[in-house]
């Protein structure tokens, strides 16, 4: 194990930046200073993260995690949770793209937020978010991870509601916060249940790594038998329940069915926030958590199945909604939900590495697309409705070109980043197996994924066409805008329409260019063998090779014990006192990643790659021909209204809760029972006092009579019961 305090610098540099901006920046109110502090703070994190990951014995080079034990946080009996950080290969990859993409978005935001009154506040929140997010991924136990988890939720809330004068911002922020609370409920219960299970196994722990005095919970779980497949297992209180509860947490944070409703509304925040928090980093925390706990999930085939189904359903569902949205950011929001669904589908079929790969490439191209849309919105003077855009490529050439890179990447056109990761997921979905589930399910999931890929290409093409091609609809007011769509825009909107769009300043275009390059070439780190072998050189999937050790493998059959030789290479035996032993520790370079697949399999994978490419191209051409001439084509009302999910939730969840709260809890329970108890107690005392008041009327002779009566009663008692009643005196 390596112990280095540099690791804590990654999280504390942004915290420090947030403090400076909050305490000093608010007095100085100098945009240069504030932006410099915020970017420098994240820049320090980025440099340290890259150094720790890539130095000769860095996190990505060895199987030993880089650790930083700050202090022991909770110590109760044999249980210990530290405020400790650890960077292994998984958190290393995450830290790299979070800090780097985060840095670019910070730079972008210095231009985008120019002139905003809350400039210092924005960057303080943004830095605070980086602190929380990095704490989340670098935490070496679930408890500290939960601190980061809640921290990013708080920052998300603060930043969604950043525009204080925007009507829809505050309810959107509340919605995000509350939807996340529902998920956190599952997450906390999952942590508690995991603690309970490991306690029964003799090693109470919620840590991810072995350290001095701490046993890894994941290693304990790895030594347990695999749960059987069945719906009863979810409620049995075993590992399946843990995995299921943790997944509820993930659905909240990562906006999956049924808790996805907050993410589209979260677009009320500033666009850099949407890019950083609601596309690239925070919403992928759920995927991170699932992969981090992959041992638990592979021991719970039922939970895996649920994850895969929910992921696939969300992917398809959100993609169809994305087809019909007119707000440029809403399209991207539903696209994000859809892509997150892909990631969970990959997790569900056991392709954890592919999921992380897609998280990374998605961070590149979705951050690119969001920043590009931010650039468009900035250039259009805060116009978000695509129906009032069109023909922008003349006015914003850099934004257009860079967004093309993101567009091709998300559609899955070869060599762009999204192609490799999406293709990997689809292939792993087809070829993978889920224990206890008929193989047809994998094929069905693949089909859903393929349809989603097609839809993705269509709606992204629609977005590009509506924004950058066609006639310039911002010049004249569009006729067929329905009145309810116009009221959302500010009053000055009509005046702004007269301004011509303009290209964004350098501080915004440079991050766009960098992210476009990443979207274009970022996928080359994970070229699968089937494709890289075509060219002859470099037949190694660097990404999978790096990450394979941290992801657990799906056991062959459900209900089997983990005694099989295939798994022995990563099962840690008895908990050892060696510091920093990772939970899942294979030999350097897992056999899985190095193994050359059979020729037949390679051929099949190439075939599927070809199918993916065809799907992408078909989608793009459908989108192109449908919307090139008719960009304002009326989409189905059902999709435009998001399947009325918000209305259904309003009617089935929110209203019942409101009614029960108002009529039941408030009027009956609070007013009746609680107030009744308190008032009743008061009235009883008053009435009792009114009765006994008559004993205290001030007449001495009445007192004397009472004393006499008392004496007579006492004496009479003893006289009646005889001398033995007095025996207590002799005791």
């Amino acid at each position, binding site marked *: 194990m390596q112990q280095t305090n540099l690791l804590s610098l990654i999280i504390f540099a942004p915290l420090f930046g947030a403090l400076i901006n909050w305490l000093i920046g608010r007095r100085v109110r100098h945009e240069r200073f504030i932006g410099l502090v915020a970017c420098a703070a994240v820049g320090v994190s980025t440099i340290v993260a890259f150094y720790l990951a890539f130095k000769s014995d860095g996190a990505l080079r060895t199987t030993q995690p880089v650790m930083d034990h700050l202090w022991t946080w909770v110590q109760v009996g044999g249980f210990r949770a530290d405020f400790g950080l650890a960077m292994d290969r998984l958190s290393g990859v995450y830290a790299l793209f979070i800090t780097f993409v985060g840095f670019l978005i910070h730079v972008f935001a210095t231009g985008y937020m120019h002139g905003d009154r809350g400039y210092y506040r924005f960057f303080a929140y943004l830095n605070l978010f980086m602190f929380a997010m990095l704490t989340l991924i670098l935490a070496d136990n679930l408890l500290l991870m939960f601190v980061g988890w809640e921290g990013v939720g708080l920052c998300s809330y603060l930043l969604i509601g950043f525009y204080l004068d925007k009507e829809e911002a505050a309810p959107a922020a509340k919605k995000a916060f509350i939807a996340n609370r529902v998920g956190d409920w599952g997450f906390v219960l999952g942590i508690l249940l995991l603690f309970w299970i490991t306690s029964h196994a003799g090693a109470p722990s919620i840590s991810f790594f072995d350290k001095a005095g701490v046993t890894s919970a994941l290693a304990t779980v790895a030594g347990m038998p695999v749960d059987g497949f069945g719906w009863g297992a979810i409620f049995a209180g075993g590992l399946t329940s843990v995995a299921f509860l943790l997944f509820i947490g993930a659905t909240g944070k990562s906006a999956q069915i049924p808790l996805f409703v907050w993410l589209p509304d979260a677009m009320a925040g500033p666009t850099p926030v949407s890019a950083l928090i609601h596309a690239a980093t925070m919403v992928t925390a759920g995927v991170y958590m699932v992969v981090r706990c992959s041992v638990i999930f592979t021991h719970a085939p039922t939970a895996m199945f649920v994850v895969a189904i929910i992921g696939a359903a969300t992917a398809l569902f959100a993609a169809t909604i994305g087809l019909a949205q007119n707000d440029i950011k809403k399209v991207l929001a539903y696209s994000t939900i859809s892509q997150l669904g892909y990631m969970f589908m990959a997790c569900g079929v056991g392709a954890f590495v592919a999921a992380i790969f897609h998280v990374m490439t998605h961070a590149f191209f979705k951050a690119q697309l969001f920043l590009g849309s931010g650039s468009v919105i900035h250039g259009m003077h805060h116009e978000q409705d695509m129906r009032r855009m069109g023909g922008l490529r003349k006015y914003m050439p850099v934004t257009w070109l860079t967004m093309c890179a993101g567009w091709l990447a998300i559609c899955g056109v070869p060599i762009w980043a999204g192609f490799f990761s999406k293709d990997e997921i689809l292939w792993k979905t087809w070829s993978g197996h889920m224990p206890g589930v008929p193989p047809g399910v994998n094929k069905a999931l693949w089909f859903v994924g393929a349809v989603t890929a097609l839809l993705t290409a269509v709606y992204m093409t629609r977005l590009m066409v509506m924004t950058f091609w066609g006639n310039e609809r911002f010049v004249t007011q569009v006729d067929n805008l329905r009145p309810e769509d116009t009221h959302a825009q500010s009053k000055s909107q009509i005046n702004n329409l007269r301004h011509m769009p303009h290209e964004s300043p350098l501080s915004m275009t440079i991050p766009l260019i960098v992210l476009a390059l990443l979207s274009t070439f970022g996928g080359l780190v994970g070229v699968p063998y089937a494709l890289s072998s075509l060219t002859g050189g470099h037949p190694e999937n660097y990404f999978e090779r790096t990450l394979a050790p941290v992801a657990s493998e799906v056991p062959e059959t459900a209900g089997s014990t983990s005694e099989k030789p295939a798994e022995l290479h990563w099962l840690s035996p008895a908990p050892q006192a060696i510091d920093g032993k990772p939970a899942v520790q294979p030999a350097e370079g897992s056999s899985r990643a190095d193994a050359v697949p059979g020729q037949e399999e390679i051929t099949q994978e190439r075939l599927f790659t070809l199918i993916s490419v065809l799907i992408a191209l078909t989608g793009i051409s459908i989108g192109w021909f449908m919307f090139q001439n008719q960009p304002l084509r009326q989409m189905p009302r059902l999709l435009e209204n998001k399947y009325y999910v918000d209305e259904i939730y309003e009617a089935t969840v929110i209203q019942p809760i409101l009614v029960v709260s108002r009529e039941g809890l408030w009027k009956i329970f609070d007013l009746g029972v609680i107030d009744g108890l308190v008032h009743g107690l008061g009235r009883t005392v008053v009435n009792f006092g009114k009765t006994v008041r008559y004993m205290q*009327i*001030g*007449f*001495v*002779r009445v007192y*004397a*009579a009472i004393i*006499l009566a008392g004496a007579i009663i006492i004496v009479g008692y003893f006289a009646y019961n005889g001398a033995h009643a007095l025996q207590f005196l002799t005791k």
Partner: protein
Amino acid sequence: MTPQLSWYLALSAVLFTIGAVGVLIKRNVISMFMCIELMLNAVNLTFVAFSSFFRDVSGQLFVFIVMTVAAAEAAVGLGIIITIFRNRESLDVDDASTLKL
């Protein structure tokens, strides 16, 4: 016919009852006070009677204590009575019903 213990007890009970009833029905504070003394002395009589009957001197010791307490009580009580009389020009206890002077 020598006096029996029961005679003394009967006399004592009669005296005590007279005292108790007197406290309850008398309005004059002096009379009430005297009735209290009567009750005390009825008890004293019981003590002495039992002391003589059981040949045990401790009963008579109690009597001395009771008489001492009675004397002290008389001193304090008379002081209160005089104060009440000075304030209210009355010795009727029912007039002193406001729990303050």
